[in-house]
């Protein structure tokens, strides 16, 4: 019996080990590759063999990559600010005010977040051309509203609905207007939810590819995912794996640190957006 339980424990931890290795190994291998150049790149190594920073130097001294990172930072932050601003007031109305058609409105917003992005691509392309923002960051900021806004509204609405009625009643008795109630009563309570949704929206905007690929036409206006996807070597037939991995590590490490740091909040936000909605 005792031997059985030892065997059970061992196989359980073995399973855990398999899960962790499967999850972490590809990124570990990307880091390993990013430090290799020349022929070392084309030998399969399981453990670090060299620490050559030249791939990182190539990426960071390249003409466009730093610019692409700045583009992504600007686009993702502006998208988040814009989405949160619109979502806070909207979710107050959806969570705290009774009106007819509220349930239907919520379902419509949820439906928008399920849109296949390709279905709006042609129409958005026309709109962006019409507004004259093709090949500028604003094209992405505008189009990213389609997936950040429904998501933030949905999560913030769930969060606001769970806040007690009393806090609002006191303010109503004092004659506060809805705007004052939002900014003075709810906003201070909502920081945790705002951080979570903001972070998830940021990650979504940072990673987006289809719109960024379609609405940019020059190397300097590309975002990071597009730049990495289209990174090419000296010749057409030579893929610069070392530099691609270095660029990948550069854009992924900050994201992973953020995710690990805000782990609990992110899991809560994901499940609020997923299980409840």
């Amino acid at each position, binding site marked *: 019996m005792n031997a059985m339980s030892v065997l059970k424990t061992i196989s359980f931890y073995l399973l855990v080990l398999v*899960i962790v290795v499967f999850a972490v190994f590809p990124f570990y291998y990307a880091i390993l*590759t990013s430090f290799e150049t020349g022929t070392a790149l084309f030998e399969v190594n399981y453990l670090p063999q060299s620490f050559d920073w030249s791939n990182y130097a190539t990426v960071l001294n390249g003409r466009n990559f730093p610019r692409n990172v700045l583009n992504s930072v600007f686009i993702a932050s502006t998208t988040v600010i814009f989405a949160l601003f619109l979502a806070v007031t909207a979710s107050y*109305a959806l969570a705290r005010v009774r*009106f007819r058609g509220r349930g239907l409105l919520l379902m419509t917003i949820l439906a928008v977040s399920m849109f296949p992005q390709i*279905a709006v691509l*042609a129409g958005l392309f026309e*709109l962006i051309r019409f507004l004259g923002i093709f090949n500028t960051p604003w094209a992405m900021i505008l189009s990213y509203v389609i997936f950040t806004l429904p998501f933030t509204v949905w999560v913030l609405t769930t969060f606001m609905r769970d806040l007690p009625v009393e806090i609002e009643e006191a303010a109503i008795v004092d004659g506060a207007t809805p705007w004052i109630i939002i900014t003075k009563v709810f906003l201070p309570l909502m920081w945790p939810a705002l951080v979570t949704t903001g972070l998830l929206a940021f990650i979504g905007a940072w990673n987006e590819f289809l719109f960024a690929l379609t609405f940019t036409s020059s190397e300097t206006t590309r975002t990071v*995912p597009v730049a990495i996807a289209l990174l090419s070597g000296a010749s057409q037939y030579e893929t610069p794996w070392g530099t691609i991995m270095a660029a990948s590590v550069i854009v992924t490490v900050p994201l992973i640190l953020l995710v690990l740091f805000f782990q609990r909040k992110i899991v809560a936000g994901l499940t609020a957006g997923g299980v409840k909605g």
Partner: protein
Amino acid sequence: MPNPDHGPSLQQQRARSAFWFLAPMLIALFCVAAWPLLRTIWFSFTDTTLSNLYGGKWIGFDNYLSIRTLESGRVIYRGTLVDPAWWNAVWNTVRFSVLSVTIETVLGLMVALVLNAEFKGRGLVRAAILIPWAIPTIVSAKMWAWMLNDQFGILNDIMLRLGLITEKIAWTASTETAMTAVLIVDVWKTTPFMALLCLAGLQMIPRDIYEAARVDGIHPVKVFFKVTLPLVRPALMVAVIFRMLDALRIFDLIYVLTPNSAATKTMSIISRENLIDFDKFAYGSAQSTLLFAIIAIFVSLYIWLGKVDLSGGGK
């Protein structure tokens, strides 16, 4: 109401301000979602081209299906609905979606069951499985493209060493394995998300149920199928539809991993090709309209047949 005398007017005032609070969001969503969708559908009935967005003429259903009878009596069918490339893409998308979501659900549930147990280092494992989720899809596609490289890839090396294969496989280039390659990467990337959603569902099950089952001496496998599975089913159903919708519109992973393989071209890929690369703007619009219709029908059927409660007590 705290103030009965001003009850109705207060209610009215709140409803009015609610309208103004909702208006900016609704206008924004109309501009980026509803209007472009309507325009896409409109384009699909015209002969618009990329270089002449406003010069398109109404041509009815010709982009979908046109039947012309020549004088010789031969009938010519044209349009997306008789385009073998389109049906290949439909088949690829469906195959990819069903396979990936099934594998991810099973694996995700397994990982969630592991994470639901109490053990040392659980927090660390949960952090580790968040890593694939946090990595941008393009980056994971590139990382795996390197690992799946036919000559220098580590996966071939591992499998050769273990004796699983006798010669190196061109994972992404060969038609037989391209879909497998895409599935491997997608499973790696999205199983964590599935696992977290399943875990949230599992944690809502009260622990006493398991205690009672153990006291009664019921076999764990039976407990899983009779207790755990029915209780996580609602959470699972919602997770599955979210993943399914993501899978049906997959674009970026395939665009980077297997760009030119007909074995993995999905509806999104082929629509964009026609829209932007091949200058068949209207034809591509028709294909994206069809994709939208397929997804809409699928969601309605799923919610209707599965009796999924998406509102989460929204009323």
